[in-house]
């Protein structure tokens, strides 16, 4: 309806053909990443364009080594951008910052700290003006949310992999980021634990509605969690190959998703893409 000429901060909602200038959270434009090697430059990503809306959950799938993690770490600011740009709410990304929370593939907790201290590490940094008790409340709230009520004062090294990743989720949500970046957070877990953590993640996310970008290898996980599944082509020169909109109502449960008539259509779509 509002036809703004400046397309920098606007996006076209493909379904309705409307432009919502203020709804874009994350804007990746002509993104390029080159790794210099002794045999010449290796172009990982090229001409990568992707817009992610506020309160959207996007999962990214693609073959191993196609550059998904490279893209995510560029959004996080941990990996320098070779060409193009990334903007969060219109502000170009210049480095890492707590407005983009990251959940890493390995839980990456400080093993010498307790679960609570690990979450507090970020909370103290992001809410420096809150009182000590308030910050502790925030940390405890999120630890409670991920189901770690009894483990506040356990050393991270004493927790199981799954519990460590729960702390990782609590730590990421507790700093109230604008964007949550998840790099195959459940890739190292067994399938039972993975399911549990997916439920926990989606439950917290339903409440907080933080824009989320998540890399996964698991097609079912991608469908269950996402509003849109972004498929990346295989590298080198990887880009966005296809985008699949997932039209399930939220909040979702695993059961309703699995029983939905479109589920297998989506699934086939993704698998067809990955196999070609």
């Amino acid at each position, binding site marked *: 309806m509002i036809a703004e000429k400046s397309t920098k901060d606007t996006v076209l909602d493909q379904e309705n053909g409307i432009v919502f200038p203020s709804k874009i959270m994350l804007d990746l434009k002509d993104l390029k990443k080159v790794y210099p090697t002794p045999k010449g430059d290796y172009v990982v990503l090229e001409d990568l364009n992707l817009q992610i809306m506020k309160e959207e959950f996007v999962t990214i799938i693609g073959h191993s080594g196609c550059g998904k993690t490279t893209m995510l770490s560029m959004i996080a*600011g*941990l990996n320098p951008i070779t060409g193009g740009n990334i903007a969060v709410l219109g502000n170009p990304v210049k*480095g890492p*910052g707590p407005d983009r*929370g*990251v959940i890493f593939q*390995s839980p990456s907790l400080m093993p*010498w700290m307790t679960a609570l201290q690990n979450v507090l590490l970020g909370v103290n940094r992001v809410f420096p003006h809150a009182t000590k008790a308030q910050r502790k409340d925030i940390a405890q709230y999120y630890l409670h949310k991920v189901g770690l009520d009894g483990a506040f004062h356990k050393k991270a090294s004493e927790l199981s992999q799954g519990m460590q990743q729960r702390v990782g989720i609590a730590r990421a949500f507790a*700093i109230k980021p604008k964007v949550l970046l998840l790099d195959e957070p459940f890739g190292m877990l067994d399938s039972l634990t993975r399911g549990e953590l997916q439920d926990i993640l989606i439950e917290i996310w339903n409440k907080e509605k933080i824009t989320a970008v998540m890399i996964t290898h698991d097609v079912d996980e991608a469908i269950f969690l996402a509003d849109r599944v972004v498929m990346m082509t295989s590298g080198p020169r990887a880009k966005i190959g296809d985008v699949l909109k997932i039209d399930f109502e939220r909040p979702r449960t695993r059961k309703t998703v699995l029983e939905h008539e479109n589920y297998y259509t989506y699934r086939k779509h993704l698998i067809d893409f990955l196999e070609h």
Partner: protein
Amino acid sequence: MKQSVTVNEPKDLKAGVALKAFFSKLKIKPPKFEVKTILRKVVVPIVSILLFIGLWHMGSKALFNVEANYKIEKALTDQGQAAADATKACIASGDLSCQPNTLPSPSQVWASFNTLLADHKTISADKLAFKEKTAALNEKRIAAGKEPITYTGRPSFVDQIGTSLKTVFAGFLLALVIAVPIGIIIGLSETLRSSFNWLIQIFKPVSPVVWLLLVFMIVKTMTKDSNSDSAFIISFISVGLCAMWATLVNTAMGVATVDKDYINVAKVLKLGALQKVFKVILPSSLPLIFTGLRITLSVAWMVLIAIELLAQSPGLGSFVWEEFQNGANDSNSKIIVAMFLIGIIGFLLDRIMLVVQNAVSFNKNASA
């Protein structure tokens, strides 16, 4: 000679019987231990200790015989049959004046150990008496602004152990104070690391003796007009300088190789430089720092003896050297006593450091 041997043997046997009895008691007492574990953890070590003592005993006996025969033969060729017989009789009688001087037997060493303990008791009694005697006088002297009179008698063996421990801890602290901060700084910066590397590589292998001489050159001049204990200063600084390299290298390595994930977390949270160092980098390199400190302490203890020996600083090193120079009849066995004590103290120091190291290590699977 034979006499001394026959006196020794029953003693050793008795000890063996006592140990066996002790062991058989142990075997019955804790029923939860498997026989196999007891065998491995109790019997085998005891057997090996007995074997060691037995071999030592036989070796020293053989050396004793060689030395005795040489003495007798020398008397024979130099002074004739009568003198040889006299020497033989003298040796057999156990007379201290003519005993061959060689590797002492286990029982002689044990006896020397007891002598040293008795000596310590006498000396500490002396000291106490001296203190009581001078207490009133010293109070007056202090009131009058004079230096109090201190005990200046010979230090006992235990006192010397104390001095050695004091020196090694002073040296260890010095190494810690120098090596840990420098290690952290050069660990943080690759530029500094490569610019300091040559210095570390060159100075690390320098022998303790050379460090001592270097420290001596400097400290001698610096303490020229003070009445401080320069021997102690020289030895502890040398010990610290010799021993600090392991800590320096380990600290720098620990800081330089912090898990990339932790660094990424720090980056995402945008921790400040100080917070990053104190909350992330230091804790994660603590295990390696303590590994370095453990090596440093054991190196410090090892070089201490050599340094004390050369610096004439009181302690176990000078005790060993003095006994060697002394050449008294029981000097050799006192040296062996010192050797065992040095070993045992070194072992205990290492154990203490291991406990500390395990306490700070967050990865419980990684044990030394």
